[in-house]
């Protein structure tokens, strides 16, 4: 029985000497969010692979930076690089993630990067 062959060469050709995620620059189209926008993290199903932490699901956050364009981890783990999206660095108030986080440290935050598909406007 012959095994299926997954050709990953396209990625090497594309990224060599340029870098990943740099090689996807300009491919995501216009960004839906800008710095300062309030967003909520969607609670999408992630049956096979995701890098969106469970603790962020459903929480409000603020866009801090548009960091790069890349396929989302959910696609790239299956070698699907057809749909690069914008990645945003978003900042959460600790209190919004963990309701019993002490009020004394109300300024404390968590920052992490997420692909556009996980964000909805708030």
């Amino acid at each position, binding site marked *: 029985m012959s095994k299926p062959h997954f050709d990953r060469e396209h990625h*090497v050709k594309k*990224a*060599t*000497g*340029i*870098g*990943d*995620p*740099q*090689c996807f620059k300009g491919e995501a189209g216009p960004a839906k969010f800008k710095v300062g926008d309030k967003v909520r993290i969607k609670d999408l199903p992630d049956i096979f692979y995701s*890098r*969106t*932490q469970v*603790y962020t699901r459903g929480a409000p956050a603020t866009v801090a930076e548009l*960091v*790069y364009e*890349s396929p989302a*981890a959910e696609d790239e783990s299956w070698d699907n690089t057809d749909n690069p999206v914008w*990645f945003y*660095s978003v*900042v959460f108030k*600790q209190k919004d*993630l*963990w309701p019993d986080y002490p009020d*004394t*440290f109300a*300024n*404390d*935050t*968590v*920052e*992490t*990067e*997420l*692909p556009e598909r996980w964000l909805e406007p708030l």
Partner: protein
Amino acid sequence: MAEKHKPAPMVDEVSEFEVLEIAVRELAIEKGLFTAEDHQHWTEYMHTLGPLPAARLVAKAWLDPEYKKLAVKDGVKASLDVGVDWVNSMPTKFGTPSDYCNLRVLEDTPKLKHVVVCTLCSCYPRPILGQSPEWYRTPNYRRRLVRWPRQVLAEFGLQLPEDVEVRVEDSNQKSRFIVLPVRPEGTEGWTEDQLAEIVTRDCLIGVAVPRPGKTVNDPRPVRPAINPYKH
């Protein structure tokens, strides 16, 4: 300088662990899991890595405001000035699934302190910081830092005032992170070399802050997680 001529001490004993490492590697190569050449190539590259370039990047940023702006805006470009090419230094010339080519330099201020973790696995900016320490890889650190950052930092000996915002950076996608700490008092007039010496690995991860005279990492707590680990 008689000491210079003394041969460096050596471990004159082969441990079972050393033997196990070689045996696992040889069998894996014979089974065709990878080739000896690729392994050697990669090992040689990894031996060149360590925290010094990142320490130098911070020292340069402390001395040169323009360079600091560049470092914060484009960490990959700023890395070139300390001898790290995120794209072409790597044997693959484009990164790997663990080492993507995006470095972000997180600038601390007197009112903002960054600390880095990867809650999902243990992503770490290896090209500019070398291998991650054991504690960084443990589930205990990865699970607890996001939820109880101040307690974890206190265990590392870092107690921060209430009015300082603690920002945990969870390294979960393609960026890798180093912290650019506040330049400590008592370093006025120091050279880049002097400054780089106090920027230890732990300062670059964010669990410590630089201090004059402090050039080594403290022994760090390594604790098992309380709940059994299941996936």
